[in-house]
């Protein structure tokens, strides 16, 4: 690809703009109307083509929105490549968490919060917190259930941590992988306007798991009714985030496949809730 060579000949402004780019080369966005005609027919848009247009076209600074769709060309074995996925500030992470806990109907989580900057900080640490919260609260609820009985000796069940960790991390990474593969396959058959990159799907799943953390803490209360109500409530909340995110991606498809996809997403989420809590 000749595009790295073209960096050498670019104006300083262009180079500075390109260096300030955020990674996201494979998403199509309706927010940037200039790019839609070019991007519509090739999802895996080579970054070279976009950069060529940037170099040849105007280079004003208000085109940084367009540049938000470009990847910094760091090879994957360097540290800088992975730093691209942690390019978030505190307030951004907090905003994304808020967006996942209070889903606004009609607003797409990905488009609203993540569009140009999927991060791995949120999913990773939310999963880690969830693992420990589930283990600890499961332990505590056992303790409170058996509190009065004289034959009960308290044991900190440490095995639970490893099981919980495996389950949650597998869910947060393998299910997005499968979903992404499925969406890519459907995209090749049916033209869709909206498609998400793998990192964005991981992001949505990660942030949607956040609402399970307070649920797991409240799960210590040993009343069955309270537990069921809590679980259904949190399932609806995080499920709605997922549904609202993925519905635009499948609605242009065959009716039955669209419904099946969404139903599978919700079902897997419910299984996770029931299994963990």
């Amino acid at each position, binding site marked *: 690809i000749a595009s790295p060579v073209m960096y050498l000949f670019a104006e300083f402004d262009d180079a500075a703009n390109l260096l300030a780019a955020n990674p996201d080369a494979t998403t199509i966005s309706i927010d940037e109307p200039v790019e839609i005609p070019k991007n519509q027919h090739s999802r895996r848009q080579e970054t070279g083509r976009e950069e060529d247009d940037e170099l040849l076209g105007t280079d004003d600074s208000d085109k940084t929105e367009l540049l938000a769709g470009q990847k910094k060309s760091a090879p994957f074995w360097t*540290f800088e490549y*992975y*730093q691209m*996925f*942690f390019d*978030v*500030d*505190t*307030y951004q*992470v907090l905003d994304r968490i808020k967006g996942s806990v209070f889903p606004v109907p009609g607003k797409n989580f990905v488009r609203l919060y993540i569009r140009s900057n999927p991060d791995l*900080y949120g999913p990773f*640490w939310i999963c*880690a*917190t969830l693992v*420990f919260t589930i283990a*600890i609260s499961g*332990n505590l609820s056992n303790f409170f259930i058996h509190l009065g009985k004289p034959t009960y*000796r*308290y*044991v*900190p*069940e*440490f*095995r*639970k941590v490893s099981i919980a960790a495996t389950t949650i991390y597998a869910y947060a990474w393998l299910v997005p992988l499968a979903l992404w593969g499925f969406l890519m396959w459907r995209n090749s058959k049916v033209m869709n306007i909206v498609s998400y990159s793998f990192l964005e799907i991981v992001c949505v799943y990660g942030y949607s798991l956040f609402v399970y953390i307070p649920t797991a803490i409240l799960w210590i209360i040993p009343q069955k009714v309270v537990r069921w109500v809590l679980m259904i409530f949190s399932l609806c909340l995080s499920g709605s985030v997922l549904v609202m995110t993925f519905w635009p991606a499948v609605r242009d498809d065959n009716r039955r496949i669209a419904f099946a996809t969404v139903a599978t997403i919700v079902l897997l989420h419910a299984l996770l809730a029931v299994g963990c809590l």
Partner: protein
Amino acid sequence: FAGLADVSISEDIPVEGEITVPVGSHSPDEDYSTLDEPVRDTILRDLKAVGKKFVHVMYPKKSSTLLRDWDLWGPLVLCVSLALMLQGGSADSKDDGGPQFAEVFVIIWFGAVVITLNSKLLGGTISFFQSLCVLGYCILPLTVAMLVCRLVLLAGSGTVSFIIRLIVVAAMFGWSTLASTAFLADSQPPNRKALVVYPISLFYFVISWMILTFTPQ
């Protein structure tokens, strides 16, 4: 240079002075000479460095000596002693017991590595081993808490002892987090400090949980 041909040093002015260039620091000499010193001096020097860092952790002030001369002896000693003290708790074969030695070891070191990677990925300027060193040394308050807990448990294991243990462990958890934040927070970009402090507090929380739930057989 015709004019210089006439310059000559007269015989009666003595020419003297030093030709050797004064060295700024004597460390190359020291490195050579540490080979000859008795082993006790070498060990004592390292022990003094470790001890000085312990003192820095107990009274955290922003000093750069902890960061500059990192070593991993202190963290290793603390980790091993903490893992040893967490042994002997409900090690029945049929139910889930407390954490095994290997589990504690892995959690501490793996957790410290993950937190260091996290802070570096977020743009921190601290080096890998410096961060490991600080995180390891700041386990010292929790090790002290573990000692206190074991002593309290020797006296009895009722509600009163639980409350005492809870207070002690909570106080040491706060101390650990504050100490490590005092050392590490400066090297982070300012609008990401909370993102770096949160995993550190989660790490020490998990260790505190393991200490608090320790029940002897």
